[in-house]
């Protein structure tokens, strides 16, 4: 562990020096602060788990996780230091902080009153959000059952139990491609040429590599769960947005009774997810379901049984989720379509752009902020609410085909009473949500332009 600590301290010192110099302050201060952050950060992270990942009897995966945590702690601490220095070193310099007075605004004259008003919200956040979060991290490193006399500390076993990294061709392939693209990018940049399409390919490849490597890290038990979550989430989000936009476009035209149509289209959103599950359970029932009946009347094919066909089970779950949540997307898209700049559309029409081109190049970019927001809310829905639909529709699906991360962790914690496992899987879900949100903010957030 000590070589790692030394490396963290060194890295912290270097980064700190650079940040301080950039902020216009002395580099030596930066080195010291950075080194301190690089020392304190990892220790703060490793202390609660007593650095157990570096014990002798631990395997490679434990050590890898330990190194990851180490690096994460160091990055957080150093990042915090850099952020503070950037905030302080604004053009006005540190004096700007001293100039903050309480002479303007609604709370003039009252220095601590705002904090009093914020206090109830903060208390509730701490009690019901932050403390349980910290408690979840703690529970994920212990063996916990409600009736047990003790809670033994098991280090990161609950995580390593799910992780059995294997080398797969579908993980190596995209990584190799990404390496090629990165090299190509660097070479082109040296030569001064700019290739925006290459950058898009690079971004796409980065996403692919992250997803493929994450899947390859998980072992046989959890890989299926992870893949199912990806499939269900992608299916729900893509279908919901695409169909939502299509329907919103249709309903935005000046047809009679469009107000009624809009209301009817949004209605399913008021249903709770389990009800959607029950409705589709009955509709797709292999013996008495109406869908099977209609399908077999209209086509010469037999309707497969979604309770024993994995691909159909996933499709039906996605269908039920999309049906339930599409109202939300339609609502926002209808509002957004009303705000598309008509003068740009007219100009494009005069220039000879066809309707499809107008749609692709003007309408869709104008809807970018809404799309960005809808992606995040649909992903949240897909992660957290689809589980309710799945419970009633397939109960985890034929052979785990519709067992997503949320379903697996609810089963572990409440049905089997194993809170340690449930907590560890919660943390994995948390990491997934962070990753998706971070990616969204980075990729789409950059392209979002608010206003004209």
């Amino acid at each position, binding site marked *: 562990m000590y070589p790692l600590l030394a490396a963290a301290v060194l890295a912290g010192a270097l980064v700190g020096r650079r940040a301080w110099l950039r902020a216009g302050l002395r580099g030596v201060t930066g080195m010291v602060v950075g080194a301190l952050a690089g020392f304190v950060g990892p220790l703060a992270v490793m202390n609660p788990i007593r650095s157990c990942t570096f014990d002798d009897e631990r395997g490679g995966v434990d050590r890898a996780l330990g190194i990851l945590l180490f690096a994460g702690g160091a990055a957080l601490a150093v990042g915090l230091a850099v952020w503070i220095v950037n905030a302080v070193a604004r053009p006005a310099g540190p004096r700007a902080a001293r100039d903050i007075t309480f002479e303007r605004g609604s709370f003039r004259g009252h220095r601590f009153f705002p904090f009093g008003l914020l206090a109830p919200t903060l208390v509730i956040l701490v009690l019901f959000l932050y403390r349980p979060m910290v408690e979840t991290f703690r529970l994920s490193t212990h063996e916990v059952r409600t*009736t047990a006399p003790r809670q033994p500390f098991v280090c990161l076993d609950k995580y390593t139990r799910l992780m059995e990294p294997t080398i797969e061709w579908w993980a190596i392939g995209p990584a190799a491609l990404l390496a090629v693209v990165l090299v190509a990018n660097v070479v082109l940049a040296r030569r001064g040429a700019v290739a925006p399409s290459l950058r898009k390919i690079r971004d796409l490849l980065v996403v692919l590599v992250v997803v493929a490597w994450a899947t390859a890290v998980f072992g046989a038990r959890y890989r299926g769960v992870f893949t199912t979550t990806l499939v269900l989430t992608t299916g729900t989000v893509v279908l919901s947005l695409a169909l939502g936009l299509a329907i919103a476009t249709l309903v935005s035209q000046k047809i009679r009774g469009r107000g009624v149509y809009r209301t009817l289209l949004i209605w399913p959103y008021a249903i709770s997810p389990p009800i959607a599950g029950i409705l589709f359970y009955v509709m797709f029932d292999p013996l008495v379901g109406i869908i099977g009946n209609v399908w077999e009347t209209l086509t010469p094919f037999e309707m497969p*049984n979604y309770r*024993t066909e*994995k691909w159909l089970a996933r499709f039906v779950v996605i269908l039920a989720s999309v049906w339930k949540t599409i109202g939300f997307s339609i609502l926002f898209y209808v509002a957004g379509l009303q705000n598309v700049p008509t003068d740009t559309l007219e100009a494009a029409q005069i220039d000879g752009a066809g309707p499809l081109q107008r749609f692709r190049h003007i309408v869709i970019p104008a809807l970018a902020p809404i799309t960005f927001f809808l992606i995040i809310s649909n992903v949240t829905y897909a992660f957290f609410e689809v589980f309710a639909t799945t419970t009633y529709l397939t*109960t985890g699906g*034929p*052979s785990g085909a519709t067992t997503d991360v949320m379903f697996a962790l609810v089963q572990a914690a409440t*049905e089997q009473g*194993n809170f340690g496992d449930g907590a560890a899987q919660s943390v994995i879900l948390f990491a997934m949500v962070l990753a998706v949100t971070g990616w969204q903010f980075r990729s789409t957030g950059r392209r979002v332009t608010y206003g004209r």
Partner: protein
Amino acid sequence: MHTRTQGPALIAVGLLVAASGALTGAGASAQTTSAEVTGIGVSIAFTDYRLDWMNERAREFEEAHPEYEISVQGFDDYEALLQSVTLAAQQGDPPAIAQYFEVATQEARDAVNSEGEPLFASVEAAIDGRTEILGEPVVLDDIVTAVADYYTIDGEFSSMPWNTSSTLFYGNASIMEAAGIDAAPETWAEVEAACDAIMALDDAPSACITWPNHGWFFEQSIAQQGGLLANNDNGRAGRADEVQLDSSEMLSFVEYWKSLADAGHYVYSGTQRDWDYTTNSFVAQEVAFILTSSGDGTALVTDGAEAGFDVVASRMPYNGDADYAGNLIGGATLWLVNGLSPEQSDGALAFMQFVNNPENAASWHRETNYIPITNSAIALLEEEGWFAENPYASVATDQLALADGSPAARGALLGGFVQIRDIMTLAMEDVLVSEADPAERFEQASAEAQEALESYNSLYAEE
């Protein structure tokens, strides 16, 4: 600003909130002991007519013993019940009696309250050799042998069994007659032959047989063949620390199940632990045979009559190639919470004996078709001619009487049994739906179950 009208409105709302808070706070807790009445809390994992039955017995007991007040609380499932009891114990206010299901017996024995004391006390020890408690005759020694064998651990009869069932085979008499099957099949080979005959009919049902994909059926089949699920005599000679899901007995059962499915005789509902699908398919005559709990007997016979066919109940078919050792019980038992005062303890014990006295046990059987839990109750029902009128009612009791008392027939005592059952059913689903190889898949399941057991034991076993 509407300060003038806001003020009085706010005060009114505040008073309303305070009043409702006071009212809810004044709600009776589970255990209150005033000078006259001792309160006994009973937690039951039923919310239907079975809870009503328990409530009626509570009122009758209160009439006979006015110094006690029984408050029965129903729960949706056993997990919710145990969590509620545990948390109530942590707060120092637990109920006196808690119903918990059979395979969680190891967990119930291991459970501790917040002081580190066992959560439940042994019923036999609390009775302490008395033959009568508060005038209620003790019936613990009259419990049917198979049931007593299950719940007696280390020679100590630690809980009071209440609702017990066994797995039965139900057949559609009309379809059986049409296919020329005189007697219900008793062995696996006979089941296959019967299914061949039935599926060859012109108006054959969609499938021949179904049963829920639930851990109980695996345990039953292993027990029938004399196989063990865990070491240390199925966990009865000492704490089980090894579980084996790929024994030859298990694989025989899995392969028999798979062969029925491959032949199109067995239809899988598609979801694990789906009891409703089984009974619904049978009543709708989509299948000719089902395996399900004896507790569904009355409902099946009634619904079948309404649908126009007779229902025949018989023993669960067993492996003809192995020596029959016995079938297991299912259901739940009443545990006595530890740390009660002598009045509460006596009251709780008396109530337990009252609920299982011959008349009440017979009434419970008649209403629900759980087996009559004491020999006196069986005798009473025979006298009444109940079994002569309802032949399906005695099958479970007769089947349980065939058990030979070996560790296999007594059933396994394992920690983390719910998780292990989930592992079994998922493995079977993989075999049925994803064409997984039984031996490989159940070997993997065995390793998973072993891990689950080791996590459980790390919490409770002596170090």
